[in-house]
């Protein structure tokens, strides 16, 4: 099998923009919910736009819930983006209470209007890295700007899993999280110009190893 990346399709959000970015980098990728194709991929991207509850329901309906947990525990590189980051956590309070994949322990909560001002946060904000040696941020300057669109953010139980932090209004939140072969970001690297493109390149390079 030639090298390829699986972008998990759970029928929500704009999966095409990640696909197009990988095409731009001459990297083979496939938008799929097919178990074999996901298993055979060299790396997996869990994208996401939409609501947490609906997305988890879609994952369960396609029997992807256990598959993602199994693959990540076996060491498959996984990159979660935006809602795809939220879904890796234990639980979310977005429109009710929903259980997540629990690959990273912690919860997803809403911004508080009194602390941040306008919700959602829409626009470019900076990320300060806590470990500049991490593979995903190589050749990306600390405090670089990335494009955010979100009303909820994740809080990991174990602070050592936090790779990047961002300040919105008076709230500092975890914008990048990592745990072994799993990396996830709150922002949209596929909409973050050069630094975002570099981040996907770094992920792909990690998958090649």
């Amino acid at each position, binding site marked *: 099998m030639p090298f390829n990346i699986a972008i998990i399709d759970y029928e929500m959000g704009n999966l095409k923009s990640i696909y197009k970015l990988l095409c731009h980098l001459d990297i083979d990728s496939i938008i799929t919910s097919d178990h074999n194709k996901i298993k055979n991929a060299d790396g997996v991207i869990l994208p996401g736009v939409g609501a947490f509850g609906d997305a988890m329901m879609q994952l369960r309906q396609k029997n992807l819930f256990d598959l993602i947990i199994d693959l990540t525990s076996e060491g498959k590189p996984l990159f979660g983006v935006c809602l795809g980051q939220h879904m890796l956590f234990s639980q979310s309070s977005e429109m009710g209470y929903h259980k997540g994949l629990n690959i990273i322990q912690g919860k997803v909560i809403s911004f508080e209007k009194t602390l941040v001002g306008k919700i959602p946060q829409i*626009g470019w904000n900076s990320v300060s890295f806590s470990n500049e040696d991490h593979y995903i941020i190589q050749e990306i300057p600390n*405090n670089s700007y990335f494009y955010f669109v979100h009303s909820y953010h994740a809080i990991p139980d174990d602070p050592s899993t936090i790779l990047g932090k961002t300040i919105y209004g008076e709230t500092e939140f975890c914008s990048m999280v990592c745990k072994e072969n799993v990396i996830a970001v709150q922002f949209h690297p596929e909409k973050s110009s050069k630094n975002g493109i570099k981040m996907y390149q770094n992920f792909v390079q990690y998958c090649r190893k």
Partner: protein
Amino acid sequence: MPLTKRIIPCLDVTTSSNTARVVKGTKFIDLRDAGDPIELGEFYDEQGADELVFLDITASSDKRKILIDLVERTGEQVFIPFTVGGGLRTVKDIKEILRAGADKVSLNTAAVQNPDLIKEGSKIFGSQCIVTAIDAKRVYVNSPKEAMNNIVTQIDDKYCWWEVYIHGGRTPTGKDAVLWGEKTTKLGSGEILLTSMDCDGTKSGYDLALTKIFSERLAVPIIASGGAGNPRHIIDAFNLGKADAALAASIFHYNEFPINIVKEECKKAGIPMRL
């Protein structure tokens, strides 16, 4: 470092020939084909644009395929968020444009005529991708009592309210722009693209009173538009107008003030910018 203010070049495109072209004259030295929207988009991305807006000024539904093709191809080359507007009338139109790869759609005339379009669009696709564009023009009155049902602002020794225009600024609606803006956010609009018809094309600066009243009364980001002639105007839109983003066309197209220069000027003025 906080959330930055955004600088957004606007590309007016026409789909009247068989391909989408930028309408306003463009004189970039380095570009082979100055009229190609995607090349311009890439060029602006390179210069540091935070987002792009494509407005199809022909706005004809029979030429929708050309617009969709433009969106598809833009998404292959440009990796910053982009908004597409012009003639989108139905949920199906919105879906087609978003599916093709746009991050947001901008609704104007159709939203005024059918406000449920905002509601349905935001419910299905999320508020973050529904931008309501409002074209507003000052209506002067002698005293606030003359316009009891409108949001009247005092500007120096005069009073005015703002009226919503549709059909590309050709048709007055009698609607109060501020009240309409507030209603659109209740319906689910995630952002407002606010164009001053009084200032548009004058290069004498944004309508700061209009921008400010929207920014103060609405809980969603406001994109100021119409009137930018130099970096100072953009700084004023942020500092005095309290805008979240500033949109401009001609000052960027003619390269009078490249985006990177404008952003550096804003930064010097203390405005958070992505450089």
